[in-house]
């Protein structure tokens, strides 16, 4: 036990934090996408596991073809928008439940992602490539660039969801009957929201592959859970710090904070020399716990068990 603690170097942990923050930043973009579907549209969209890898794959392949890395982010965005729209159309035009529509698109994307990479499971981007948007070889530079991208995206989202059409998307997510009565085409709003969400996720996938230097067809596996974890951690922390003062921009900012915190914890677990393969188990437990909190809180106030206890107490008197 003593030897274990002696082997831990706290400075080493601090040294790993910038890289954790950089990862947290591009996963934060992914989580912003999840926020659009999960919180604004009230849909659990599983397409993202596919679109994250799509973004990475298209970027890697195009960079190898000589594209400017920045332009490949745009290409990832377009593919992400399309994939999200497909899920939206499966859901609204063919009546497939949203969660199943997302699973179908994600499943199809696995083949498409492989096809993009000429049917290889991964594609390495030459480390000598210049002008990458972000790279693990330059962590501080990556932090700066990705930080700016995140701020611009949050500003854009704040603006967009304050416009007439953004308002219509939010209304669709919170009350469909009311939205229809007010003349909103809720099918169109769902498709639009799903497209935007997956566009952001693909951008995150593109940045991720540039940062790590390779694209992998499995890069997005389980990313929905990481995105949800970021959204939920961000909400809990945001509410604890700002409480009722937390406005929409604050919510978005704390989603990214949540993603960064997630990667700080991840780094901590690696530093503690725990098996990183257990991280998925921990993440799932954390997400399940936080998702359960509102339900458990309401049960603490009123439940059959409590009512039964009260009744017995009364009889005892």
């Amino acid at each position, binding site marked *: 036990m003593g030897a274990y603690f002696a082997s831990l170097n706290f400075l080493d942990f601090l040294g790993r934090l910038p890289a954790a923050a950089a990862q947290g930043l591009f996963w934060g973009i992914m989580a912003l996408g999840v926020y659009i579907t999960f919180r604004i549209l009230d849909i659990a969209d599983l397409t993202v596991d596919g679109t994250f890898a799509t973004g990475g794959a298209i970027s890697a392949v195009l960079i190898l073809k000589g594209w400017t890395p920045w332009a490949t982010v745009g290409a990832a965005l377009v593919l992400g928008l399309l994939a999200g729209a497909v899920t939206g159309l499966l859901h609204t035009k063919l009546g497939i439940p949203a969660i199943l529509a997302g699973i179908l698109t994600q499943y199809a994307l696995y083949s498409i992602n492989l096809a993009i990479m000429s049917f290889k499971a991964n594609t390495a981007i030459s480390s000598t490539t210049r002008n990458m948007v972000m790279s693990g070889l330059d962590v501080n530079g990556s932090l700066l660039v990705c930080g700016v991208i995140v701020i611009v995206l949050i500003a854009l989202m704040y603006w967009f969801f304050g*416009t*007439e059409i953004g308002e219509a998307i*939010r209304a669709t997510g919170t009350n469909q*009957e*009311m939205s229809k*009565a*007010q*003349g*909103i085409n809720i099918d169109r709003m769902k498709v639009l929201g799903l497209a935007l969400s997956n566009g952001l996720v693909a951008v995150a996938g593109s940045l991720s592959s540039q940062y790590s230097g390779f694209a992998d067809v499995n890069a997005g596996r389980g990313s929905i859970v990481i995105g949800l974890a970021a959204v939920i951690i961000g909400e809990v922390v945001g509410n604890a710090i700002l409480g009722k003062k937390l406005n929409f921009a604050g919510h978005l900012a704390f989603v990214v904070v949540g993603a960064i915190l997630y990667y700080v914890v991840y780094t901590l677990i690696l530093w503690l020399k725990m098996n990183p393969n257990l991280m998925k188990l921990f993440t799932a437990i954390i997400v399940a716990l936080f998702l359960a909190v509102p339900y458990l809180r309401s049960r603490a106030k009123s439940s059959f068990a409590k009512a039964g206890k009260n009744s017995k107490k009364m009889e005892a008197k």
Partner: protein
Amino acid sequence: MLQLKNITKTFNQGTINEKHALNGIDLTLEDGDFVTVIGGNGAGKSTLLNAIAGVWPVDTGSIVIDGQDVTGLPDFKRAPLIGRVFQDPMTGTAPTMQIEENLAIAARRGKHRGLAWGVNNKEREEYKERLKILDLGLEDRLTAKVGLLSGGQRQALTLLMATLVKPKILLLDEHTAALDPKTASKVLRATDKIVNEGHLTTLMITHNMKDAIVHGNRLIMMNAGKVVLDIKGEEKKKLTVEKLLHQFEVVSGEEFASDKALLS
């Protein structure tokens, strides 16, 4: 303003739960008609309003609003012509959004929604003035989330939203039934005011016979998916609950089947 011709609707056709909800409705509303709709449970009152609103397609017949045949249009495409207030106070408003955002969404009913700001300062002032009509103090709470409001407040807000863009026809589906008596009468007063000032063509379902007699210039009674009574003008002014019940028994050959209507 509204012409219904031979509207029929059967739910669960061909199953054991088959229900002929509307059995050939013919109804014409003149511009400015304020029609109260009464009838027992399952008479087809709500179904009639849903048919007009376009919640689902009708089986036969035609629906013409202000000269426009809307029979083939879904609800959100009819919305520019129609204002709706629902029985459940939760249905008509978006709880996670602010009062002013809800109103702004309603102010754009039937208009193009683009990338302009969702709420602008000019309309905020207008909303304050309109909210004062309700007399609920909402004019000072423009940025409060609607989910924090009481059922009565939400219903009054829905009423305002339904009429912010002047509808060709206003559909009120027992919009005070879920409220306590005091709030209900407040919302009904606001309804009268808004309908009369705007000269709105209105269909109002109510379970309360007295309300049905006091409000509006015309009264229809439904039974088994048909309009069985249609009373307007001077004749309506002379109506009493007893006369109405008697007429119902004569027309339908059975007793009025809703205790709630008699007791309230």
